[in-house]
């Protein structure tokens, strides 16, 4: 895809080309500041790309950005959860923007990530790990094909990380693909998993 990306002064991504197939995950174990987040945001369309194109299903994403967005799920450092809302409300409002969902689907998703009912606790009072699980539940509810995850397992305990890996594995087995930036590799089934240690590999 020949991505050139500038982040302010630094020529962050210099002619990077990257291909991601269905059911495939690519984990970016790049050193800090090597442009992991910039790449994710560039692919998501949040960051303008100086030159080069992002193609999804063969078509340039900028031609029909709305369709690309409906297939896309982006999880950044900040989880876009509202502290004053309960977990269920957060999901209802954020997932509701994209698709019709009902309360049953929401509580089902929350249970799937290990959050026991009742879900009436304000997100503010949940632990960081639990909040991330709510974000994971939202990810599942979006059921987008392409997952762009920016350090999904940050500040999670071992059990949490296993859960994240399991959710991603399930997503991959359903034919979805994932681009993940992470510090320490996530234990994913080898069949789907590609690791990359520095941007130069794709130059």
């Amino acid at each position, binding site marked *: 895809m020949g991505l050139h990306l500038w982040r302010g002064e630094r020529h962050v991504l210099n002619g990077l080309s990257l291909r991601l197939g269905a059911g495939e995950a690519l984990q970016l174990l790049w050193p800090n500041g090597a442009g992991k987040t910039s790449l994710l945001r560039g692919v998501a369309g949040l960051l303008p790309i100086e030159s080069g194109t992002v193609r999804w299903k063969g078509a340039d994403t900028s031609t029909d950005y709305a369709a690309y967005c409906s297939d896309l799920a982006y999880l950044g450092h*900040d989880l876009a959860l509202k502290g004053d809302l309960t977990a269920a409300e957060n999901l209802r409002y954020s997932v509701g923007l*994209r698709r019709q969902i009902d309360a049953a689907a929401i509580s089902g998703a929350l249970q799937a990530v290990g959050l026991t009912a009742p879900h009436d606790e304000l997100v503010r009072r949940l632990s960081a790990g639990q909040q991330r699980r709510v974000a994971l539940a939202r990810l599942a509810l979006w059921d987008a094909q392409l997952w762009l995850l920016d350090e999904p397992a940050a500040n999670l305990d071992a059990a949490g990380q296993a859960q994240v890996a399991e959710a991603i594995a399930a997503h991959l087995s359903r034919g979805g693909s994932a681009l993940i930036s992470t510090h320490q590799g996530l234990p994913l089934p080898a069949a789907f998993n590609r690791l990359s240690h520095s941007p130069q590999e794709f130059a």
Partner: protein
Amino acid sequence: MSRPASSLRAASLILQRDLTLAFRRPGEWLQPVAFFLIVTMLFPLALDPELSRLRALAPGALWVAALLSSVLALEFLFREDGRDGTLEQFALSGQSFAWLLLAKTASHWLLTGLPLAIAAPLAAVGLGAPASAIPGILVALLLGSVSLSLLGAIGAGLTLGIRRGGALLSLLVLPLAIPTLVFGARATAMAIQGEPAAAPLYLLAALTVFGITLAPLAAAAAVRISLE
């Protein structure tokens, strides 16, 4: 597997979310209205309490106070959603970003602009306006506060990522709000004098409609740039 959400539904969800959020933390949203009342109260203290003379100043005082408190209220519009990533998810939701921001501005108006327009007649009476002028003042400020919120949305979008963007925000928004101020103050002055205020009100309404159609596009572009 499921039908994508319609844009109308998305907008109503945003409104519901903002209203529930506001009711969970009521104090915050009343600050702009309190500021508005305080500022209008300052005029009689600073000038002279004689009602007949105050009446001449009432329109100007009301509208300057309305302008300032609506700029102050812009703090609540994008800043929090920008910081916690919600705006990013709006941009990536597949819905039209301008439409979602219009819904966001509408909920912001409901929580800050509307109370302002309701409080204005009270403040006007305090400044010597006759009771007969209240409907005129209410209509003028309802229209005016809508266009102020819309212009404010552009300014807030532009200064979203900027630390201490408050002063810059007012430098950007206030010059743009001059037409609203001129027509609004004129409409209020005519309402107070009992004359039919149709002409300035139509101009004010035109400004508001113009704002509703174009401002969200500019605000969407501004926020998208600030989110980079």
